[in-house]
């Protein structure tokens, strides 16, 4: 018995966006705005790295061993040319961090995208087809879910190492890592999408489409898919943060991105050796960059989840 009166709303997309609760809660939350700006800045820096970074840390001609182990510029012995100091090879920290963030972000996005594609496809099929297809797929998902993603990622990484010829590890590390993390994250999408599909399937607009005679695939893609995107988006933002952390962890452990084009995690690992001898900046700055990036993504994810949750309004 819910025949409430609804006032008319403007029909255009922009107008609807402006009126929406999402935008309102965004505007009224200073932390979220700061987080969004930070993320934007880091994304931009990462994308435009070659133009923004003061030096190219991978151009061997630019790197001079004599510049090694310089402290940040506000400390004694630091130079303005290297604002955050240099590492043991003489590479500028600021530049390596910018490039490192770039790699971390690329791996993060690519692996989440992979997980999303696999997970959403599996979830759609599993939820709509039902029967033994559903049972088999969900069993696989259950088995995989009983292991933490990091273990799975490690395993895939290890297997890849075993399978690929020794010399090519470094070059292919990026792809191996993306695959490893992507394959360990798909399950959550599948589960959630399947749940949503099961709910939507019972709805009467699906029934109406069936009565009209539309084939199952059309119904799945045109009717059901648009209605299950909400939770997928929320999971994606949460997983982006997790993916970045996982990549950093794997790199730190030495089984991720190699030092030839290091990610933030690799940088932290390299710097760890110098922590006790006093050159703290080689670890701490990449560490800080990592934390800021993940924090910003997490804040955005939290906000998105709360804003999209109809029950909290």
């Amino acid at each position, binding site marked *: *018995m*819910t*025949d*409430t*009166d*609804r006032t*008319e*709303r403007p*029909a255009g997309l922009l107008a609807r966006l402006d009126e929406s609760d999402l935008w*309102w809660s965004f505007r009224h939350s200073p932390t979220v705005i700061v987080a969004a700006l930070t993320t934007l800045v880091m994304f931009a820096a990462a994308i435009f790295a070659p133009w923004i970074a003061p030096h190219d840390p991978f151009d061997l001609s630019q790197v001079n061993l004599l510049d090694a182990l310089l402290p940040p510029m506000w400390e004694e012995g630091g130079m303005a040319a290297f604002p955050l100091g240099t590492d043991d090879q003489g590479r500028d920290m600021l530049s390596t961090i910018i490039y490192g963030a770039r790699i971390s972000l690329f791996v993060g996005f690519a692996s989440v995208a992979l997980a999303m594609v696999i997970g959403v496809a599996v979830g759609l099929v599993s939820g709509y087809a039902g029967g*033994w297809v559903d*049972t088999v797929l969900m069993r696989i998902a259950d088995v995989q879910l009983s292991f933490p993603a990091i273990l799975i990622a490690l395993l895939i990484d290890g297997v890849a190492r075993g399978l690929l010829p020794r010399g090519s590890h470094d070059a292919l590390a990026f792809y191996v890592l993306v695959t490893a993390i992507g394959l360990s994250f798909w399950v959550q999408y599948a589960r959630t999408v399947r749940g949503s599909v099961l709910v939507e399937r019972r*709805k*009467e*607009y699906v*029934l*109406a*489409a*069936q*009565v*009209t*005679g*539309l*084939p199952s695939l059309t119904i799945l893609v045109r*009717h059901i898919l*648009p*209605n299950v995107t909400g939770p997928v988006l929320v999971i994606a933002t949460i997983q982006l943060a997790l993916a970045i952390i996982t990549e950093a962890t794997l790199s730190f452990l030495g089984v991720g991105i190699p030092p030839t084009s290091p990610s933030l995690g690799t940088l932290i690992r390299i710097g760890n050796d110098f922590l006790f001898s006093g050159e703290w900046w080689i670890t701490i700055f990449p560490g800080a960059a990592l934390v800021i990036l993940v924090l910003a993504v997490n804040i955005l994810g939290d906000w998105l989840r709360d804003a999209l949750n109809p029950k909290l309004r």
Partner: protein
Amino acid sequence: MTRLLDISGLSVEFPSRRGTVTAARDITLSVAPGEILGVVGESGAGKSTIGAAVMGLLEPPGRVSGGEVHLDGQRIDTLPEGDKRRIRGRRIGMIFQDPLTSLNPLETIEDQLVTTMLTHLDLSEAEARARAVELIDQVGIPEPAKRVKNYPHQFSGGMRQRAVIALALCAEPEVVIADEPTTALDVSIQAQILELMRRLVRDRDVGMILITHDMGVIAETADRVAVMYRGSVVEEGPTDKILLNPDHAYTQSLIAAVPRPDRRMDRFPLVDYSGEGAAPRAAFDVKTHWLGQARDFAAAHEGPLVAVENLTMAFHVGGMLSGRHETFTAVDDLSLDIRDGEVFGLVGESGSGKSTVARLLTGIYRPVSGRVVFAGVDLTAIGSRREMNRYRRQMQMIFQDPYSSVNPRMRVSDIVAEPIRFHRLASSNAEARRIVEDLLEHVGLGAAAAKKYPHEFSGGQRQRISIARALATRPRFLICDEPTSALDVSIQAQILNLLKDLQEELGLTMLFISHDLPVIRQMCDRVGVMKGGRLMELAETETLFEAPQNDYTRHLLALMPKIYAEEAGEGGGAAALDA
């Protein structure tokens, strides 16, 4: 007469970022011991808000913005929270709508009763346990000593509501507020619960406020009635007077919109009080209008349009791994005919199989055995999708829940155009668009609705969108599966009128499925009564209602609310009038 609960000038508002919504305005009501005050209104009227406000349980940011509430002479709305808590349960009890979610699933009924009693009454635990058994017995649950130790999930819906009533009464309150207590229950259970509540009110001399949208419940149960509309009480008085001789225009329109169970009328009388009604529908000539054209009924057929022969449908319960393997027979050897141009009604309670029949007719389910013959063609024998689609064009369906029957992510124009595009009934996009706009006009929404999204419309309007979509393929057979059960009474009247008009104009054959007997009487030519998947009785409408042959039919008819009781000596609330 002493007034137990006295509400005067109560106002409740909900401040929000879009402005303040006044949910209740200047409400004045009172209840005496041993009497049942009904509060009736459609959704959004503010009835539940009153209940919550009296109990001090308004969800924030809701708050009382004016007025007073007195219990037995003492003012209670300004008490501190601790005192308010002591009143809840002990002096005012409350019953909610859904018995399944009202009970803590992890505790036995006994524990829930005992905890409540020990909080308010000075009893030892042993005494409380003994009293719990008594209460369960008083609310009519058999084997009380054994069942009191059960968990909520071990009870059926009706039993659970009885347990809820026991819980609301266990601390011996003087007033009970019941918010839609029977809405979630089947018709036969509903009658039992209402009877129970009447008896308890009488025996314990409590005052009850019964909040509901259902006029039938009011007629059967309430001594006095307050009618609410958009936050205000528009009329109040003894039930007899309000039902038979209302003063206020809104009350009049509300009563008029309730489907009469006693005789069939041409149309539902509409006093369009809310102004939400449809855009005026232009008269049209079916022979020249698009809707009446090219409905390839070339193949003349003999016999009824739809013939169902020995249809049986069973479902498997429990999958491979759950260890349960039962079959549930939803439809059992069903046979019936639906003739050209008639409106055939299928009535039954939930679980009777009526919706399954609809799905079998449209080919969504394949029957275990039996045939469905449409215009002489055996649909159940068709294998190819393409061939089936030819017949799918000719039958369409509208559904019960207006909020899930249209895809919230699609524009109205796309929703209505989809069948047109799929069956290639229009030669171009422009033509499709024109057809859609025409259809929207025809169902009373107006062509401007095409660009909007479903969430911009109310429930009744969304149902019109569904109807437009169903008409888009120019079907000759329309199945209506509880199309108005989820709508307010006045909106229901509008939609049913629309369906009547369309059926006449277009010569549609209709299968009208409902659990609501008065609606069936108003809409249908012939009726089939279903129970447990079987057809219990099939007859012309008037025959069925005046001279039922089957016991179950008689049972259902007896449960109909007697708002216009012409039956002499049948008892029940309202007196006869309006011959």
